[in-house]
């Protein structure tokens, strides 16, 4: 099985479909060749559990979409595995590994250095730097970023030229080449998304994590963004992305993981997942097909309501009589 998952074959949609069809469509299912494995990751904000994922594997070389209603914990989950946040369960059974390297305690920068690069929901283009400078910052292992070497141009000049050539190539691919000397702050929202993605690619990542890459992008640009993402996959990169637009998800993802209220509730191909009752519940609520029309209300409920109304009326009357302790008691009752 793993030999099927190597990068050249992942360009063939048929191979991908066959491979993923053999994977069980249950939350936390085992993948033939997982690049990212997450175990028991919990994040609590006060009493609220934002993320509580027992097990998730991400298959190498395909596009995995992470969907879920607002507040499902998708972005928090991204922050946790990329080192921008610490799980509450850290040291208490939280483990996640990328390409076999354990990431439990690593910082955001070393996660990126290990080959897992992310973008942000609110784009972090460095607006007061040129597009080119933004790109150049993405490259890894630059000798000129070492303080001692930085003062001597011969030590990094050649590498700088190489990095620049690579940046030009990527900018060309993302249709940003003519903007290369403009400040990133002058770009449109969609162009910033493109720039951020291109910048992430400067580091030659093995896996790229996109947090809502289509948010705020106009439909024309969405098309080109989508094809960029597909090209990346066809080149052998693993893509994990958060998205709200179901058309987009259905269109490009090979596998979909669904989160709701911090938990992983379903996994499977786009079609399987969208007919999964757990997913429909998550999006529409568990009682979405219960009619709450008048005639359906049971007598029991009616009796309950009548009782409440009577109690309310009695209290109002007491209040009108001006008993001093009544308002307080009424306030407590309301709680």
């Amino acid at each position, binding site marked *: 099985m793993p030999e099927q998952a190597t990068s050249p074959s992942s360009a063939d949609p048929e191979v991908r479909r066959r491979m993923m069809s053999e994977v069980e469509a249950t939350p936390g299912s085992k993948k033939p060749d997982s690049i990212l494995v997450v175990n028991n990751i919990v994040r609590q904000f006060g009493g609220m559990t934002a993320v509580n994922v027992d097990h998730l594997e991400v298959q190498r070389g395909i596009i995995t979409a992470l969907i879920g209603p607002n507040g499902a914990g998708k972005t928090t989950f991204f922050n946790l595995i*990329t080192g*921008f946040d610490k799980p509450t369960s850290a040291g208490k059974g939280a483990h996640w590994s990328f390409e076999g390297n354990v990431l439990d305690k690593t*910082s*955001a*920068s*070393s*996660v*990126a*250095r290990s080959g897992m*690069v*992310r*973008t*942000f929901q609110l784009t*972090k*283009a*460095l*607006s*007061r*730097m040129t597009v080119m*400078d933004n790109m*150049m*910052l*993405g490259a*890894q292992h*630059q*000798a*000129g*970023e*070492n*303080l001692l070497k*930085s*003062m*001597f*141009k011969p030590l*990094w000049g050649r590498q*700088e030229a190489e990095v620049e050539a690579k940046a030009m190539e990527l900018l060309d691919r993302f249709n940003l080449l003519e903007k290369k000397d403009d*400040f*990133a*702050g*002058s770009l449109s929202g969609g162009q910033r998304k493109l720039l951020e993605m291109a*910048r*992430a690619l*400067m*580091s030659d990542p093995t896996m790229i994590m996109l947090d809502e890459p289509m948010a705020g992008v106009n439909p024309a640009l969405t098309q080109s963004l989508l094809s960029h993402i597909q090209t990346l996959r066809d080149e052998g990169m693993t893509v994990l992305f958060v998205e709200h637009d179901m058309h987009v998800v259905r269109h490009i993802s090979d596998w979909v993981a669904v989160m709701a209220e911090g938990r992983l509730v379903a996994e499977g191909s786009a079609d399987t997942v969208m007919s999964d009752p757990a997913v429909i519940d998550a999006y529409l609520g568990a009682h979405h097909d219960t009619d709450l029309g008048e005639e359906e209300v049971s007598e029991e409920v009616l009796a309950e309501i009548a009782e409440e109304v009577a109690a309310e009326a009695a209290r109002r009357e007491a209040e009108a009589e001006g008993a001093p302790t009544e308002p307080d008691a009424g306030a407590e009752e309301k709680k």
Partner: protein
Amino acid sequence: MDTFFNILQAMAREMVAPTTAAVAIAVIGLNVHFGFTGLLNMGQAGFMLLGAYGFAISIRNGLPLPVGVLFGFGAAFLFALILGIPTLKLRGDYLAIVTISAAEIIRFSGRLSILTDFTGAAQGIPGSEYRDPFTALSFFGTGSTDIGFLDYSNTGVNGWWVRFVAWSLVAICSVLVYLLVRSPWGRLLRGIREDEDAIRSLGKNVFAIKMQALVIGGLLGALGGMVYVLPGSVQADAMGRSMTFFCYTALLIGGAATVFGPILGSIIFYTARIFVKSVANAYVPDSIMSSAETESFSYIVVGVILMLVVIFRPQGILGNKRELQFNA
């Protein structure tokens, strides 16, 4: 006409003064912090004072000049580490709070009478106790030289030698900063200034880079402090909060995040102050403003200038307006 010429002379003297050069060096350091990296260091005067103390105290106790310089740098280096380790992982404002209080702690410790044998307490350390090894290095010989109307002794306490060394150091520091900021390392600094998290997501060790910037700017501050005390004496109060604010004023006037901004800003700051002071002295009768009051008045005018610069030309004289148009 004569008064006017005198005012010009006073301005020119202030322009080439070693103290102006010393502050310029400290401002170059502050520019590495605030201008390029976005570190809000409100205690540059503390770095200066530590440099001056390290330098003066070691020479006063019989150590050779290079060792004294090393002690000055070492003190600032430790200071930067101690300030940076707890605060650089936090948001920028914390660094500002910690640096301003730490600089004040240094100043008040220097004034402690229990340390009289060491720092000279409130009296400070007179220049005669540490200056000699420096003047001994002079190859300018004795006598005095008159360039235009600037007439100073060649070596002396406050002569051409100290001016020459001070301004050469300004030039060297500027070249150093230029070499640093045009490199990929400098690009990282500007990236960190814009958005730390973005740089972190690209796999860079933000904490280490910020620490390097803090140390480099601090060392430049210490060098400024050493030059500052050469023609005078080490006085803790000369390098207090107001010195930090003078540095910020000079930096903002000249233009933050530029290579020549700090030098231009320092020169303009000091000459403008002398200009205001001398004009007020010469043309405003004593009954309205005494000469002691003109001193304070000059600082008020400089403060107003700072406000006008920040409101109407936030990028300073040399800064790039376009860079400021985009609020990150």
